[in-house]
């Protein structure tokens, strides 16, 4: 397939999309890429409003906060109480109590995942939270090493707080979160024994990319970040552990601290394109972007003083973003697959947190827990026979009601709590089905099955793939001679459609 953008786009790729090019197809592209899904009502609204206004609505100038979940909060208070209790406890007791406390961590982590998914599933904040996810896939910390859900929450709240501001400010804030201090061993970075872990990843994976720094830059930068500690959940600068000596980074020499090193990094050319490229990989394509096109984006972004909302606007309103070759061929991440399914089917997040965490883990994306500091690689790496199987299993679960007899007491508490918040629609019910296939279905002849098949394809697939698809679906909807469609058939068809290869794309 020819994936090269038309010449007019190549000439000024980051110029705004002409109003004449805003239609159902381009609007769907924005909705599924910037958010999780493109439901008909959202699509209609976006088409009416135009690209600029839709952008403003998706990324308003102020951020909506994600309130710290109750169980995450209790971790913090519980931890303080535990420490007090343990001061005079014998050594053995300390160990046991600490281990027991670790169990609470896992419950709180699951709660954090569940509450965040519930928050992010709201259409009003979907685009914001997808952007937070994108940034947290750059500024990675992982539950597997950090363990403490309170710090994980704090780290993501920091990302969210700075998500529309200047990137250097975000980078500096990130170097101070307790989760990062733990995750990349800043806590062990001392004047006499610098630990290079953070400095290396800052350059390689957060700001510049491999090959844009030397080993000497890393060694010197590591010294600038000595003494970064956390205490009681806050950043703490340990002056006696900080190396106040002279460092040379990117050819500049001085008594730099971490912030100064970050400023120096943003003055190198690689910083202009690094995050922009990461963003395009996250939202647009796993194909390589023409370096010239990328450079022009980097320049436009640098002219906006690396403002992150400016970068979002540049990309999401540009002609380049809507290049036809980039439509309908991007593999959904497991989180998008899950939240998109919920929005498409108008369901609430399964309140049984352990089940959701396990489903996402099997699909290859445990929230707040990327496999390593590079984050999730994405693209075709999401797909293997085992992860595809997990996606199918998830769809299956959305078509089966929660079974209270298989839930333990803790699960039931979670279900009750979700219901108290007004969430009670956890699986597809018979009443939903008719609407999806645009019924009441007439007891008509073959034509109605084809119409329903078309409607299902139009609603759920990125682009109508093929008439063969329609034929197969129509046959399954309407296998008998008398022409009536049994709602149970719609259920089976919809389930298969959502498991099918094409639904994995957006």
């Amino acid at each position, binding site marked *: *397939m020819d*994936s*090269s953008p038309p010449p007019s786009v190549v000439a000024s790729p980051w110029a705004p999309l002409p109003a004449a090019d805003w239609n159902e197809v381009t609007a769907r592209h924005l909705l599924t890429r910037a958010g999780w899904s493109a439901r008909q009502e959202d699509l209609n609204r976006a088409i009416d409003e135009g690209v600029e206004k839709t952008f403003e609505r998706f990324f308003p100038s102020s951020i909506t906060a994600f309130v710290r979940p109750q169980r995450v909060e209790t971790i913090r208070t519980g931890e303080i109480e535990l420490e007090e209790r343990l001061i005079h406890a014998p050594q053995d007791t300390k160990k046991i109590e600490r281990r027991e406390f670790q169990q609470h961590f896992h419950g709180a982590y699951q709660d954090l995942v569940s509450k965040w998914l519930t928050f992010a599933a709201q259409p009003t904040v979907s685009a914001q939270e997808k952007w937070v996810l994108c940034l947290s896939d750059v500024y990675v910390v992982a539950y597997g090493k950090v363990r403490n859900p309170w710090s994980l929450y704090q780290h993501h709240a920091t990302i969210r707080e700075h998500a529309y501001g200047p990137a250097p400010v975000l980078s500096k804030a990130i170097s101070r979160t307790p989760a990062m201090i733990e995750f990349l*061993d800043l806590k*062990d970075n001392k004047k*006499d*024994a610098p*630990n*290079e*872990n953070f400095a*290396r990843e800052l350059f*390689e994976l957060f700001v510049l990319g*491999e090959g844009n720094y030397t080993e000497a830059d890393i060694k010197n930068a590591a010294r600038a970040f000595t003494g970064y500690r956390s205490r009681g959940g806050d950043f703490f600068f340990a002056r006696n552990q900080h190396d106040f000596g002279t460092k040379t980074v990117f050819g500049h020499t001085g008594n730099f601290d971490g912030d100064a090193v970050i400023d120096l990094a943003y003055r190198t050319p690689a910083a202009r394109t690094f995050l922009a490229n990461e963003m395009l990989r996250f939202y647009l*394509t*796993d*194909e*390589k972007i*023409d370096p010239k096109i990328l450079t022009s984006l980097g320049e436009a972004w640098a002219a906006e003083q690396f403002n992150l909302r400016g970068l979002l606007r540049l990309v999401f309103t540009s002609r380049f973003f809507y290049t036809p070759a980039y439509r*309908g*061929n*991007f*593999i959904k991440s497991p989180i998008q697959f899950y939240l998109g399914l919920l929005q498409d089917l108008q369901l609430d997040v399964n309140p049984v947190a352990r089940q959701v965490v396990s489903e996402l883990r*099997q699909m290859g994306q445990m929230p707040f827990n990327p*496999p*390593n*500091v*590079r984050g999730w*690689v994405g*693209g*075709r*790496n999401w*797909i*293997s*026979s*085992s*992860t*595809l*199987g*997990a996606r*199918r*299993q998830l769809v*299956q679960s959305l078509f089966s009601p929660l079974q209270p007899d298989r839930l333990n007491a803790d699960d039931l508490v979670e279900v009750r709590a979700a219901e108290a918040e007004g969430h009670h629609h956890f699986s597809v019910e018979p009443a939903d089905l008719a609407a999806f296939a645009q019924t009441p279905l007439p007891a008509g002849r073959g034509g109605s099955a084809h119409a329903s098949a078309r409607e299902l394809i139009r609603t759920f697939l990125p682009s109508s*793939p*093929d008439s*063969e*698809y329609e034929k*197969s*679906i129509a046959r*399954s909807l309407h296998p008998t001679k008398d022409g009536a469609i049994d709602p149970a058939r719609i259920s*089976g*068809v919809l*389930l*298969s*459609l959502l*498991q*099918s*290869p*094409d639904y*994995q*794309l957006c």
Partner: protein
Amino acid sequence: MRNFSQILPTTRREFLSFSGKGIGLLAFSRFAPSFLVQSTLASTPAPEKDRPILVIVQLAGGNDGLNTVVPFEDPHYYRLRPTLAVDRAKALTFGDNAAFQTGCEPLHALVKEGRLAVIQNVGYPNPNRSHFRSTDIWQTASDSERVIGTGWIGRYLDNACSGMPTTDRSPLAVHLANEVPTAFLSEHEHPTFGLNGDGRVNGGHPTALLEELARVPNPTGASENASYLRQTMMDALVTEKKVQSVLNAYQTSSPYPNNGFAHSLRSVASLIAARMPTRVYFVSLPGFDTHANQAGHHQKLLATLSESLAAFQHDLDQHGLSDQVLTMTFSEFGRRPMENESHGTDHGTAAPLFAMGSKVKAGLHGTAPDLNLAANQDLTFTTDFRQVYGTVLDRWLGCPSKEILGKEFSPIDFIA
């Protein structure tokens, strides 16, 4: 198609998106390293039942070689590791200057029984200390400076399976992790299969319609991602049924420890015992990135590795399969000889690797690292990892290694 020279990939990620499953390496063979192109054209006999099987065990994160094979006679070791050095009195020795630490009794027994070879100080020139880059180097068997888009196992499959009928979609390579390992990336398409990290099948019963939808041919103009998804789905549906019934039916009296890594090895054993045509299995044990407070954590990891590998080997013995299977470990790098101030070790270079099976020449191979080093200095490798791969290809898998590795590497004599 755009102009080739403009879009030639420079990193693996770019290469992958470019090469993918549709347009292959052959499409731009003019620009590709010639040995890669040749390897896709050469042909060795196709895999079939009863041929040798390779099980690759990844120790992800960078395994600390010096605390894996402990040079207990070397005073420099104790100088470099004031708090992390393994207590000499407790070391499980198996050479004049080589020992395992407590917890590795099963590995120790395997050496004594003649079934574990230890290849010392393995690495490559100009070592890269990035986890990802170095993992790619090991998995693609490239030079440090060169980026290759296919893995060494993928090229082996390209080479060994070109004569294979395409109707049989039984997996030639199976990975037990959610991500397909880079080592499997190939020029041509080969059926591969993935179990999850606990060695289990994901999925559930597919509907008849799903099987039909997966079989609908790709419409013209379908993206590479769409084709890839359809192909993966189709293979998965077929293989799942087969694999699930094998796992369900498996009987063994070898007691495996209760952890995901051991469960994965048990699944591997059951698939081998079922005479699947699979030639290569890839299993991963994560957690080796021990920057801080390494001692207890690393010891536990090695114990898990040790117990699980031994259980696997005994299981193969019981099923009369041990002559057919070679198991080898690798890790993206070893760690810095000198411990850091956090009682851990930072990213380093060379490390030992293990080869296990009834056909190995047990004991030490290669030379031990020279530890007469200044503060923070790294080890200098003495065996190139491609010497090990070459030996496995030539002497175990029966595939000319030069076709896969691009040149001859002098073999290490660890396979009988």
